[in-house]
């Protein structure tokens, strides 16, 4: 099975995440979209590692491990921020968080 199957699938997933992050009003779903994009990138790392000529070079795997850890931290902080914002504005609708809009 050639590599580009995985790459195109990952690109699709990335596009879905991007579309979600750009179009949804709810801040939580925007964060979810970003998570999906990160996952798509992770899949690329794994696919490239698996198809690399030197299978003992495991940089791909290590990068994904770090990426997962960072994504977890990002999700925690991001959701805490959303909860904090919700407390101030009583909404998670991004279009209503326009205090700086002049």
């Amino acid at each position, binding site marked *: 099975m050639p590599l580009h199957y995985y790459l195109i699938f990952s690109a699709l997933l990335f*596009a879905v*995440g*991007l579309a979600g992050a750009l179009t*949804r009003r709810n801040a939580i779903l925007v964060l*979810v979209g970003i998570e999906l994009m990160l996952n798509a990138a992770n899949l690329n790392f794994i696919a490239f590692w698996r198809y690399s000529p030197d299978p003992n070079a495991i940089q791909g795997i*290590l990068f994904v491990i770090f990426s997962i850890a960072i994504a977890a931290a990002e999700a925690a902080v991001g959701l805490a921020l959303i*909860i904090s914002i919700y407390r101030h504005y009583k909404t998670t609708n991004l*279009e209503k968080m326009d205090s700086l809009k002049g």
Partner: protein
Amino acid sequence: MQAAFAIIAALTLVSAIAAMSLRNLVHCALCLAVAFAGLAAMYLQLDAQFVGFAQVLVYIGAVAILVVFAILLTRSGQPVPHSVVSRSWIAGVAIAVLVFCVLTRVILSSSVSQRSLPAKPSPTVREIGNQLMTWYVLPLQVIGLLLTAATIGAVIIAMNERKSAGGDHRVTADQGHGHGHLAAPTGLNEGNATSIASETGSESPAHYPQPEREREVLAK
């Protein structure tokens, strides 16, 4: 192999699209978990056991749960009267499609992408551990630091309600009124945005009355 890939890919994509497009946010979160599981299956198919399990452990066991908690704590699970997508959604979708087209073009034109599957590698967990502890020890430390900082940061951000339980909060709530946002009585909204930790740490009288808070969390 191909069939397995097709099934997993279809499942992941469908649930990812569902996660991004459903109206009910809790359904979105559940679909997201399915998408994460599909990705984990794909890692397993690519012989990356460790990463696949880490994906399940972190994404399904923690991130999806976190998203669910955030949805319930911000009462986003309730149906909204207006559209769930923003006004400029066409532009967003167009950008996404564009990005996809560009990526596909690049992938298809690359010679790397035609590479066929090499022999099955045998990355033992021991190998990963050795690498983490030798060559990648600095990134590991940095990640540890980052995670600690993120934990503390998340707790502090979600907890600051508690410190300013008195007047501060009232001011911010009034600002909310000024901008024409959801005008709820302050006392009623006191506790509904607390984190899990303060959900259960009940020493502070600021979080009473509990039944009211629970009702709010429940009002999906």
